[in-house]
Each structure stands twice: as structure tokens, then as C-alpha cells.
């Protein structure tokens, strides 16, 4: 069991790939915002990469273990401590019953950190996933962020604890965190010539967009676009603004929705359907970078790629999240 002493800013139970298959019922997939960091944390403690862990956004979690286990912390460096001593990240560490982990504020790079525990966080799966949809208030631990006094059950470790502790990643495997995140993206479904001017698309694939402070697990808001972005004077039957369209499904996770003049990345808990056009889609293998993009500080650029590179990147990421990455 893991007892929460301080729930910090936003700590959620998340797994990967999340709650797939319910977009058509109005439920987004949710899931770890940085699936790569969660995957490594799981791998280090002997779990399958998609097992449920804790996603710590903003920092300040404090929690106590009620049993001996093995943990790993990945993601942004929140200067975690174990019983007041510095806790090394990106490796698995044995903890004893009664030990306390504590996290500070976000690091120089990245926004979210992940706590993986041997056996995973044991919450009941809802519609096939343990992920929390904070926006809808379901899944995870009682459909909400964690708070002081919560007691989380832990799953059964997949091996002897002494074998799971002290595991590290190979050199060069750990992802590189920056303040300028380049996201590979595929244009569509609404591009030039019918919805966006060619200059508009050029701008999208060259401009650096600052991440707005209001960004959260549903939507990452970016700097506004100029009027010259749009190829149409209005949205026709869809509405008066040229970003309007008759309601269509949003390709989440990863769609760049153009809402008025504001580009918005629709991600984990985003809306499944709506009346605004979507100009590009971040490839699946780069979704994790959005989760490390810090609102009010970091920026995003988009680089256009084709299906082949995107599919290859999925394969490479799957390979990265395997035992072969352990030292």
C-alpha cells in the first residue's frame, strides 16, 4: 500500500495506451501524458511498460510505503528524496515499509515525473484501463487527483524484489528534455488548399509556438495564428469563423485543433468531437513530448513527416521500451 501524505498539485494514476475504443462514445483515451517516461519507470521495476503508475504534474507529492517494494522515478527532475536523502532517478531503488518519498517543484527541463512501483498501482480497470480522466472524473483512483489520506493498493511484483532493485538504463536510452520541443506531425485532415492557405501551413511548420499557461491534460493552447492562415472567409454552415466546420470527430490524441485563431493540441483527456477544423496531427511516437512541455515556459515547433517515418518511429519506440534498454 502507498499512503498519500501530500497530494501535491496534480497526481494521477495513469497507464498506457489508456482507454482505447471509446472515442465513438465520447470518451477520450486519457493515459500517461508522457508514455515514454512511464514506460521506462515500469521497465525499471519489472512491470510491462503500460502498467499503471503515478503521473506527478507540477510536483510536491509526498507518500509513504506500507510495504517493502521497488520503485523508479523518471521524467522531470523534481529533486525527489527518500527519507530526506536524495533519490536517484531513472533507476530502480528498493524501498522499505515506512519509507517516505517526497518531490519538490518541476525541474529545469520537463513538467511531469512518473513514479513506477513494482507490480503497478492496483486500481480497478474502468472500461479496460486504469487511467484517470480528470476532465470527466472517472477511472484511476476514484476518478480524481490524489489527496492526503488516500491509500493506494499495489499490485504483485513480477519477480523477487532483490532482483528488481538496482536496474538502470543503457547509455543513450534516456530521452532528451529541452525547452523547445520539436514535434513530428502529419498534415490533415483540414489543410491547404481548401481550408488553410499554403503560407498558413508553411507558418505552422516553421513558427515556434509558446505553450499557454492554461494548458492541461485536455488541451495544450499555443500562440494565435494570423487571419492570413485561413483559405476561407467563413465556416459556411459550420459557423461564422473560418475555423468552424460542421461537427466532426477529433483525431485524438494528437490533433491540432484550430479554435478561432488559437491552435490547440487535443491530447489525453481532450474532447472527441466538435465544430473546429484540425490542421495537423502529432505522430503517436512524439505524443510524450507534449506531456513534458511546460505551460508558460516552453515552446513547440512542428516538423512535417510522412506515414513511413511515423510508423517507423512507433516501431522504434516499442523497441526502446523493452528489456533491451536495460543496462
Amino acid at each position, binding site marked *: 500500500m502507498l499512503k498519500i501524505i501530500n497530494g501535491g498539485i496534480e497526481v494521477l494514476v495513469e497507464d498506457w495506451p489508456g482507454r482505447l475504443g471509446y472515442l465513438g462514445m465520447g470518451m477520450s483515451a486519457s493515459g500517461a501524458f508522457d508514455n515514454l517516461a512511464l514506460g521506462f519507470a515500469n521497465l525499471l521495476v519489472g512491470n510491462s511498460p503500460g502498467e499503471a503508475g503515478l503521473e506527478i504534474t507540477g510536483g510536491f507529492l509526498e507518500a509513504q510505503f506500507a510495504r517493502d517494494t521497488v520503485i523508479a522515478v523518471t521524467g522531470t527532475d523534481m529533486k525527489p528524496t527518500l527519507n530526506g536523502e536524495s533519490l536517484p532517478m531513472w533507476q530502480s531503488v528498493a524501498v522499505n515499509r515506512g519509507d517516505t518519498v517526497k518531490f519538490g517543484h518541476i525541474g529545469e527541463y520537463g513538467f511531469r515525473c512518473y513514479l513506477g512501483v513494482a507490480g503497478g498501482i492496483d486500481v480497478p480497470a474502468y472500461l479496460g484501463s486504469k487511467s484517470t480522466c480528470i476532465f470527466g472524473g472517472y477511472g484511476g483512483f476514484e476518478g480524481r487527483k490524489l489527496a492526503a489520506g488516500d491509500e493506494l493498493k499495489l499490485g504483485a511484483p513480477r519477480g523477487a524484489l532483490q532482483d528488481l532493485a538496482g536496474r538502470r538504463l543503457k547509455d543513450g536510452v534516456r530521452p532528451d528534455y529541452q525547452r523547445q520541443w520539436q514535434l513530428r506531425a502529419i498534415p490533415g485532415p483540414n489543410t491547404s488548399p481548401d481550408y488553410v492557405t499554403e503560407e498558413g501551413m508553411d507558418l505552422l511548420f516553421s513558427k515556434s509556438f509558446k505553450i499557454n499557461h492554461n494548458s492541461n491534460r485536455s488541451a495544450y493552447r499555443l500562440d494565435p495564428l494570423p487571419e492570413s492562415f485561413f483559405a476561407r472567409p467563413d465556416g459556411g454552415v459550420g459557423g461564422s469563423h473560418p475555423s468552424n466546420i460542421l461537427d466532426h470527430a477529433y*483525431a485524438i490524441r494528437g490533433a491540432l485543433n484550430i479554435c478561432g485563431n488559437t491552435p490547440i493540441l487535443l491530447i489525453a483527456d481532450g474532447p472527441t468531437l466538435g465544430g473546429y477544423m484540425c490542421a495537423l496531427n502529432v505522430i503517436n511516437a512524439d505524443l510524450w513530448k507534449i506531456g513534458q512541455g511546460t505551460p508558460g515556459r516552453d515552446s513547440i515547433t512542428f516538423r512535417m513527416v510522412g506515414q513511413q517515418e511515423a510508423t517507423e518511429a512507433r516501431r522504434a519506440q516499442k523497441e526502446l521500451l523493452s528489456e533491451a534498454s536495460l543496462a
Partner: protein
Amino acid sequence: MKGNKYDVILDTMPETPSRLEILFRQAGDGFLQVEYGREQRAALQDSFRILAVNDIIRARQINGLIETVPGLRTNLFHFDPQALSSADLIAQIKEAEDSMPTIDDVVLESRVIHLPLAFEDSETKKAVQKYVKEVRPDAPNVINGYNLEYMALCNGVTVAEAKNMILGTEWFNSGCGFWPGGAFLWPVDPRCALVVPKYNPPRTWTPEGAAGIGGPCVFTYTTPTGGGYQLFGRTIPTFQFSCKHPIFKEGPFLYRPADRVKFHEVQEQEILDIFDHVHNKTDYRYQIESGQVVAKDYLTWVHSEEVQNGVRELKAKQAEGVRKAPRL
């Protein structure tokens, strides 16, 4: 258009007498949007076809196809490109399309769900009051503490006529979305097609069961949430997170794509009683009939002189209403 590096139309199917041109649009490395026609058109027969084709494709259980998300004039396909290429997926969709070449072939399984509705109930009234108090004190869409009079005003009809329009047609679900379990409900009878602007700015709270309309679509709120539709009353639960009631044993959702909803008026107490029988006693019997939508019959009926005359009359009233109603 060739040579445009942002061209995302991977393939097309030509227009036929019973179908618009089909565009296959790239929408990411795991998404394909199938769009019907190049123009933004809101026509139920497009939705009938999309949903009928959707049923055929889903029945095939294509390896690598994760899910489909049908909308009024588009269908979004979510797939795993490591298991299924977009070219193979497009080929499968084309086959399904070709299997129903004429309008006679477009027949859709469509249930009718009968939902009791209390107009201007006290819970929904609270949501409107809260909006006036906390969000927009001068909201012109709130008249006598409710939105129904504004809805009537926008359409150039009386409140009684607006109520009869809501009760007088079946409402067709072109696909679920926006909010868990939510359905986008369109009037089957175009003579009942109220059109209203959405709240500006939106509400912060709406009770579960509230029924509202935004643009031409009716929505019944599945859980308490914010929202932007003009509220006219409250119906019974159409969603249940806990899945306790037997109708929700397969999942928390009541609505399926292609369902039709028919409202009938009741007193508020009946709604409150049914809430108790759905969520607590879990013994309420939903009134649901199985049925079909035959696209050809719908088109014949909708194009009949009687219906078209009614539509013209309504449009004239609406033009007048739009002039008179305050903008939001």
C-alpha cells in the same frame, strides 16, 4: 492540386446518383477521416449512409482497426499502422461502400428510445439562475428565468409551438461524442428543426438529464458538467458510470449511433422518481423499440410537397425570428 505538399486527400470515390463524392483524408499516423462531399452540408441521408457503411465495416472486425467515430458527414477511423496500412483500410472502406451502391440499399438498424421530458423543471432552472448570477447577469437568452422563450423568439414561434416541435419529431443520433455518452440528436422532421445560438460565454454547471439545443442539435446531458446549449427541460438518465442498472450492464452508455429519441411530456415529479428508479432502485424499465431507417423512404417523405411547404413556412418564421431575437 497535385504538387501541393499539404495535400492530404489520399484517395477519392466519385459521386453517384445516391451518394456524394467521398474523400479519404489523412488525419495522423493512426487516423483516417472519410468525408462525404466537399461542401459543408447538414443532411441526414449522408449520416444514414455513413452509419450503414460503418456497420458493415465494423462487422468485418478488421485487424488493426481500433475504432470508428461517425459524425454527420464524416467518419473517423482510428487504426494501428503497424497492423493495418491506410491503403488497405481505404480498400476495405471502398468495398463496403460498393456493397450498397444505390439509395435502396441504405437501410439502417435504428432503435427508438422514448424519453419522458419535463419542460422548465426546477433543477434546470437552477442552472440558468446560476449562470445569470455568476457568469452573465444581462444574458438576453434568459427570459423569465429560462431559455425556452428565447428559443421560441429566435425561431419566430410561440413557446407552445417550440414545445410541440421538440415533442413532434424523432431526434436522430448521428454519432456519440463531445462528452461521455453524449449523442448529437438531429430532427428527423425538418418542420421541427429549431435553430438557436449557443450560450456566450458557456455555463459552468448543468444538471444530469438536462435537455438542451445548440444550433440545430439536441443534447441530453449525461452527467453534471458545463455546457453551451439552450436548456428547455430535463429528461431521465441516459448514462450511468457505475453500470448498476441492467440496461447499463455492458457499459455506461445508453445511446448508440443511429438511435432515434422521441420525447413525451411529463411532470417533473415523474422525472425525479425515474432518477431514483434508475440510479438507486435500478428497476426502471426504459422504453426502447427496435426499428429501421430506410433512407429511400425518408427522402421520398422529406421531399413531399406537404413537408416542403411546412419547411418553407418555418424558414420564413425563422428569418423573422433571427431579426428580432437579441444576439448572444
